[in-house]
């Protein structure tokens, strides 16, 4: 029992945090500051992260294999925790955070994401995913007085609900085929099921599940919700969706596909159906995301499309992992996650500062260079990292993915990745030009709250550090978690 408590510590600490926030919300007066709740949330997340680190290289398996935690999973959890922590810090200066349930929902969403990453059983997977999604639905709609926010929440619920239905339906096929909900048992039974002429059911199940996964990672053609929701949601929540929720989705994808299609008997399905489907998803995401981003004037919409494009790049890394199964491929995906997390969080943090409550049009950046040169510089660095220019973490991320793609002879995909990267320069540089070369009537300096400043500084340092000395991170992944 004691051992189990230790093994589950990252999760139950979050639960304790949630309880504390609930109690705090009851005790606090209507109009007093909720900063203390934010602090509790931040500390809880940090403590949870510490426990993840403390677990070290242990391999944990609980509840008859439905909860698994190994170094690889822990490394992803750490990312989710860092991402959420940055969002929590950013929220200190967000008006919405005046409501206690804001932090509560953020923590429950994180809890969902963490159990999602650890889940090795279909019911557990589904419940975790729903916990993450339901919390996110409410968070998106937190701006009750703003129409766009409510509309976004509504759309998110409808789209998310439909995707969950697909996912569940797909899972039921897998259950029907194998008679089990455990992923480990399932992978063994699947090969048998496949030889029994149930091909079509298997394919149907896979594609239905792909809808659910595609929704979470916002890959084309399941991406349509992303721009509207990114635009309507409060900026901090957009950050959460773009970073934490997306990474959790990828971890889910990797675990699900990796454990089901990794065995020998099912290799022909992997190469014949799964990989081609992922390739299509990746190529579509890269092209659609980057091309439509060219036309966007609303910054958050533009970033939504750019993040769709990034999902395309990350799928390539997933494909190389599925093909090679090497730790090299995994570290390239992880590197991309880190680079993407840092640059996206930094970008959104600056947007939050610059746009304040307004809906950020591209013009809010005009003349930022004159008003706040430091902010303009930081945003340029983040955009360059997203674009994948050398000396930033984004470049190393792209490079390792490309090397992996070339290593597995995926020339066409690598070519499209290069091409769409070049297209993406156009809209990233447009923003940089806007900041440096456009004049603006607004003259006063931007006011940067300490929390936003902290997040920006941290992500900036990370972006440079991992761009110039990537070995630190790679070695970290290698020695510490694997």
């Amino acid at each position, binding site marked *: 029992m004691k051992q189990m408590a230790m093994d589950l510590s990252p999760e139950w600490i979050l639960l304790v945090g949630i309880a504390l926030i609930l109690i705090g919300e009851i005790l606090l007066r209507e109009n007093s500051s909720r900063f203390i709740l934010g602090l509790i949330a931040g500390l809880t997340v940090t403590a949870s992260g510490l426990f993840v680190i403390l677990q070290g290289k242990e391999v944990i398996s609980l509840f008859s294999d439905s909860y698994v935690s190994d170094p690889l999973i822990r490394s992803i959890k750490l990312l989710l925790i860092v991402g959420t922590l940055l969002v929590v810090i950013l929220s200190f200066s967000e008006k919405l955070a005046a409501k206690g349930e804001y932090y509560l929902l953020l923590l429950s969403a994180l809890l969902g994401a963490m159990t999602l990453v650890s889940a090795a059983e279909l019911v557990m997977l589904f419940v975790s995913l729903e916990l993450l999604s339901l919390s996110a639905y409410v968070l998106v709609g937190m701006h009750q007085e703003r129409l766009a926010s409510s509309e976004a929440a*509504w759309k998110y619920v409808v789209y998310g609900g439909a995707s969950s239905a697909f996912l569940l339906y797909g899972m039921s096929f897998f259950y029907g085929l194998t008679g089990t909900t455990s992923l480990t048992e399932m992978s063994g039974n699947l090969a048998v099921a496949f030889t029994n002429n149930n091909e079509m059911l298997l394919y149907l199940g896979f594609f239905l599940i792909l*809808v659910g996964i595609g929704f979470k990672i916002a890959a084309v053609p*399941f991406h349509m919700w992303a721009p509207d929701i990114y635009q309507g949601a409060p900026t901090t929540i957009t950050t959460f969706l773009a970073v934490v929720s997306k990474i959790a989705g990828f971890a889910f994808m990797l675990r699900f596909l990796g454990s089901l299609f990794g065995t020998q008997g099912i290799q022909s399905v992997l190469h014949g*159906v799964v990989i081609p489907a992922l390739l299509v998803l990746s190529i579509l995401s890269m092209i659609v995301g980057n091309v439509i981003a060219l*036309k966007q004037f609303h910054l958050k919409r533009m970033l939504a499309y750019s993040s769709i494009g990034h999902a395309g790049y990350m799928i390539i890394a997933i494909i190389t992992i599925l093909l090679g199964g090497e730790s090299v491929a995994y570290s390239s995906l992880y590197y991309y996650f880190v680079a993407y997390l840092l640059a996206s969080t930094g970008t959104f943090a600056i947007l939050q500062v610059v746009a304040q409550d307004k809906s950020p049009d591209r013009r809010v950046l005009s003349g930022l260079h004159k008003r706040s040169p430091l902010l303009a510089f930081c945003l340029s660095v983040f955009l360059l990292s997203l674009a994948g220019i050398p000396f930033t973490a984004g470049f190393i991320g792209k490079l390792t993915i490309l090397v992996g793609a*070339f290593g597995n002879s995926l020339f066409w995909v690598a070519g499209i990745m290069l091409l769409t990267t070049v297209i993406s320069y156009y809209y990233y540089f447009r923003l940089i030009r806007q900041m440096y070369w456009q004049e603006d009537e607004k003259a006063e300096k931007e006011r940067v709250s300490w929390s936003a400043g902290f997040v920006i500084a941290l992500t900036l340092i990370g972006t440079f550090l991992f761009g110039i*000395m990537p*070995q630190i991170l790679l070695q970290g992944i290698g020695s510490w978690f694997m």
Partner: protein
Amino acid sequence: MVIKMINFAWTIPLLPLLAFLIQLTLRTKGKKLWVSWIGVISTFLAFLYAVFLLLQSFVWNRAITDWKVDWLHIGSNVITVGASFTPIQIAMLFIVSLVSCLVQLYSMGYMKDDGRSNTFFAYLSLFTFSMLGLVISPNFLELYFFWELVGVCSFLLVGFYFDRESAKQAAKKAFIVTRIGDVGLFIAICLLYWQVGSFDFAVVKQAVDTNQLSAGMLTLIAILIFVGAVGKSGQFPLHTWLPDAMEGPTPVSALIHAATMVAAGVFLIAETYWLFEASPTALTVVAYIGAFTALFAAVIALTQTNIKRVLAYSTISQLGYMMLGLGSLGYGAGFFHLLTHAFFKALLFLVAGAVIVAFRHEQDIRKMGGLWKQQKWLAVMFLIGSLSIAGIPPFSGFFSKDEIFLAVYHSGRYTLFVAALLAAFCTAFYMFRVYFLVFTGKEPGEKTKSLSWHFQVPIWILAFFSIFAGFVQFPSHILGEWIGVTESSTLWWIPVAVTLIALLGVFLAYAIYQRRWVSAAKIAKYSGFGYRLSYRKFYVDECYQAVFVWTLKGLGWILMGWDRFILGGVAQFIKLLPRQLGEIGSFLQNGQVQRYLLISIFGTLILLLSITAGRLIG
């Protein structure tokens, strides 16, 4: 002490980097004079270090210690960063630091009245750092990093006057067009890594020498590397950005768009020459593109009226010569021309900048004239540059051009030899056209501005090198021996032919623009009667020049048209295509969640059917 300095040669680029960081912090508050001196002094120190290395390697034949640290592990492969010092790298260090130092000194005069001069000097330091880093890179990846960084600096400096729409457009164009080349280079690097598993020049060279790569792959990689060089060095068909880049301040044009960065493409090919030697096809491509560019740009330069644009096309043309030399197995010749060109073209640009200042920022050569009387020294300096680029002995350009001609002749591609001769003729003509228009003729009405010593010192020094740099290869080939080239036998008639054809060009320019035996206006008048073209050939003395100039001018116009309409059109199309696609995409994205779901479902269905149908039927 000496040993220590040899071991720490890799710190050279750090000097300007340090200057950049200091200048960046002083950008808003720092005194202009101080900020500019920081740049000049740091670059001068880098130059002294480069001279020291040059002496060590060149005179005493000592090996300079390479430097290497592990940077990144991808799987079992280790990627390193470091620095290496082969003779051509040391020579490049010398050129880059010298020209950069002189240009910064010159900029102190040129940018004196500019409000943002602190930023300008910071950019120049950043550029110097990147360029020095580029030349000492021992592997492809590091080289690519700096390759991008010099591109960024070029972008920043071309767009320095960003309140001018044309400057903004030019900066954008420069960045985007060179990126097309960069992608080629990047793919080549990825392919090499995939094939060899390393980015190191030494390792890749070994793999090439031991035939690890198939012939087709070698050619593909070599050509992709050349694509990168084409973008950076303004070769046809990616040359269009370079003339537009003249929107930047003139010192920038001298440093980046004449002497150093644009030569990086040539340097890249020289650095990876073993790759090209292994692939005759790639060498042929290099030679033909180089020769075509040399002639093509020289012909365009004939009709230009903006002094900086003439020089820009002339740069493209000279870079074409270098490529031609390299492509004709003239490794030493191509590199030698890079060296002399850096000096005389920087000289020409700096003089042109001084002329522009003297005429109060007038750049049209038709509106200039008579500067000889007022600023004799400028005229002499320009003359030195012109004689050198035209290839008149004993100026440096003569020797390097002569070697290129020799290499082309030995390669047996006589068409290219003739093209290069024609280009040499055009070069002499257009340079002296500029010279006569600017320095002779009617004196300007108002007195031209006098120039401070900041202008004079760099110009004098560059003039010195433009005159004497040629003697490193004559009478004995010391440069060639140092970089390890075996010289082929000389042919007595080639230098004579080159000199004669250059003199002919000079004479023609003299006849039209100085003596005005044939007026430019008259040529324009006759040009309407195309049928007279064959007829005039009978009146050799009076008409030969006119006809010749007319056809060349006409060709110039056609080539300009090609440039503007065909290439421009293609560029527009490429730009518009994603936009159109974007329109369709946003049409689908109309905000209705029902439609979103429908698209997802249809998407899934199509995916499902298209991927599994084949398997189920078959």
